[in-house]
């Protein structure tokens, strides 16, 4: 067992982990932060996406011990300070960008990272950026639309809803 300490959503946390404990397991099982989801075992689905030191990371590809001293952001820390939905979350709700909700935390985290580096992405850029996030419910239409809306672009001309 190794002791790890990191800052998650602005709060310092620590725990004892086995060397093989993944960051995703540390979040879900040790810290009981279950908003980060596990949808696959090959780092393809993106449901476990978080930010580590500002970079998008699939938390199933990283050992908890590797996050020693890191700044980690998860879905639980995305809402506004008053608890209301942030711009991205609100856009997903407004445009029905989620159904079962399982891939959603990863989609929100991936979107946040995209808009940071590309504040006004094109439709194609959004679709390509979502390569690492699989959704089985929505057919992606409303996710793409929500992301464009979250970036402040007019989506009213995009096919009906």
């Amino acid at each position, binding site marked *: 067992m190794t002791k790890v300490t990191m800052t998650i959503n602005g709060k310092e946390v620590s725990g004892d982990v*086995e060397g*093989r404990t993944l960051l995703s397991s540390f979040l*879900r*099982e040790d810290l*009981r*932060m*279950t*908003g*980060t*989801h*596990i*949808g*696959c*075992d*090959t780092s*393809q*689905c993106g*449901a476990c996406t978080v930010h580590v030191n500002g970079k998008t990371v699939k938390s199933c590809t990283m050992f908890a011990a590797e996050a020693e001293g890191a700044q980690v952001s*998860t*879905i*639980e820390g*995305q*809402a506004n300070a008053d608890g209301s*939905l942030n711009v991205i*979350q609100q856009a*997903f*709700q*407004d445009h*029905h960008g*989620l*159904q*079962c*909700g*399982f*891939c*959603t*935390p990863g989609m*929100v985290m991936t979107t946040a990272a995209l808009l940071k580096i590309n504040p006004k992405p094109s*439709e*194609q850029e959004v*679709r*390509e950026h*979502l*390569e690492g*996030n*699989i*959704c*089985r*419910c*929505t*057919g*992606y*239409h*409303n*996710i*793409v639309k929500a992301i464009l809306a979250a970036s402040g672009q007019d989506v009213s001309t*995009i*096919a*009906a*809803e």
Partner: protein
Amino acid sequence: MPKDGGIGAATTRREDVRFLTGTGRYTDDIQTHAECAAIFARSTVANGIIKSIDTTAAAAMPGVLAIFTGEDFVEVGGNPAGWLINSRDGEPMKEPKRPVLAHGKVRHVGDAYAAVIAETVQQARDAAEMIEADIEELPAVVNMKDALAGDNFVHDEIGTNQCFDWGWIEDNRAATDEAIKNAHHVTTLELVNNRLVPNAMEPRCSIGSYHPGTGDYTLHTTSQNPHLTRLLISAFVMGIPENKLTVIAPDVGGGFGSKIYHYGEEALVLAAAKKLGRTVKWTADRSEAFLTDAHGRDHVTKIELAMDKDGNFLAFRTETHANVGAYLSNFATATPTFLHGTLMAGNYTVPLVYVNVKAVFTNTAPVDAYRGAGRPEATYSLERVIDMAAREIGRDPTDLRRQNFIKPDQYPYASAAGLEYDSGNYDALMDKMEEVSDKAGFAARRAESEAKGLLRGFGVNAYIEACGIAPSNLVGILGSRVGLYDAATVRVNATGNLSVMVGAHSHGQGHETVFPQVVAEMLGIDPMSIEIVHGDTSKIPFGMGTYGSRSLAVCGSAVVRATEKIINKAKKIAAHMLEAAEADIDFTDGEFSVAGTDKKVSFGEVALKAYIPHNFPLEDIEPGLEETAFYDPANFTYPSGAYCCEVEIDPETGKVRVDRMTAVDDFGNVINPMVVTGQVHGGLGQGIGQALLENTTYDENGQLLSASYMDYAMPRADDVPYYIVDHSQGNACTHNPLGVKGCGEAGAIGSPPTVVNAVIDAIQSGGMNVTHIDMPVSPHRVWAAMNNAK
């Protein structure tokens, strides 16, 4: 209360907030004190004799609490098939036992033969690797035709790999054969409906607990239908009395059919919980999901369409081999038969249909209903052969369909495949599709593509499907072992808000938002004062759950009936409060008033009175305001649609890109257009996935080659376009109170043939005589077909 949140409003979903903030509660999110973990040891061979299982070393591993093998479940029952199919000769289908854990033989890769329970999941996994199983590998049965020809049986005790040989409608067989023999033109197509893995993003998970003091069991599980799961465990597998077993399906991350069924892991965690007195959790990883979730489709079909000299359809005849895998999953026998054969008349006035389906056991994972369940297979066969026929006789594919459509004045229409369609207008759908898709602009778009060196094709499709499978009387006659009603309880609380307990389960469909819209409309109250309770057998009435696009049509109708009962009783209470005759009470916009006076009470005041029945006429009215209704529909609902698709093909690589995808559907009345559109989007994504990308491949030894997201091509965001979706052409369902039809599966039913028809159109536009390519229409298949045709 204004009704802008009622029927027809595109209300955003209230459940989204918890999913967007990481506060959803999926089964694996539940952690309890003193929980321990289960891990399964699974077969790595497709067919083998279990000679011995030595658990000594595993049992000595750190943290191990118990190990189970098939031996421990010999005395308990098997997981049954829910639908009895009789073969053409009247013989009942073969039903080999499906045990909790494999015993004697393993029958597919992933078949579980042992389970380890340990303090932690890591310890359980480590110990499971120490189990020494001596399994003698036998040759695997993988290909269906080989399975029927050989004497290597998946289940030795039944002496055949044929589960059944079903004919529909058997009395039409001779006449259909005769019509085809004498027809002016017969088009014949052999096709494969590719095997798919449903791939709900949340893997299956089950948590069993047992209270020794009361003998009560609780199962938290990823289910689309907790009461059905409880019934199967209680009545067939474990013998636990239903009143001693609570099944809870909390937030569920998608189902698409795969979470309808009871799986052995659910029984195992309950048995382990009782033995250990501990809560036992098992969570599938994605590899287990690929190996053990019930797969979908996997039909090999020959279809013939007979026409007269004018292009009128005379008969459809099909021969299908349907793979059921190694064991019968709960709806495996209904899916290729009554959910498939009964739709083989499509939208057409064809007088004769004959469908033959041979269901075949193979050493592969069980196959069962996946989004659409039998209807995509029917639609694909019909709409591909019709397209091929049109091209053979030089007719426009749309015109040929229109010529043979059932017309609006022909409803109710008795189809040649045995269903009574209640309503529809297929020409209107086709008209609307041509308008919203800008079909008129296709020629210009094709010219643009050709200028870039690309081929562009236009594919069209008309589908009809049957949702909300019913009525119980009819399905019982046809072999169903369950009823197919649903139930709702409307509880008006004393302070005027409502709890509505429903048998349907929401795992993405938006019931928590949509059902309150219906109740709010009826009661004239704020929808936000209405809460939906679902997924817990200890809280909800006995309902059959969510699948087959039934939630609103069946359970929603139960909600309406229960709410009507509430209104009736509330009127009695209001009459008492207003000292008026019940017949004089009007109920509008949430207020009860006495006709012709200004005397009135609000819904909330009546609710309070119901629970504080001072001065109540108890001989006429009981206290309380809570009503339950069970609703058993008179018929299926019959959504229909006209779809079109435009693809671009790069002739150098064979890569197909879906450029435009249009779905125009008749869903009857629409409660929440935003949610309905979202349901169509999802189905289109899955249908495009089936058509272009997804394939489940076993090698000749029964090894699953496509067992991860690195090998199984799930559609990604850049594989699909924006969709054009329209449901303005609804014809209300004539037999349920909301006039609604199912919308959950339509997109997945209508889109695959649309895409393939467009691919064929594109290739033929390049002068190459390619008439069919099997799905998935991968770049390699397209490239090879084009090159072979040159």
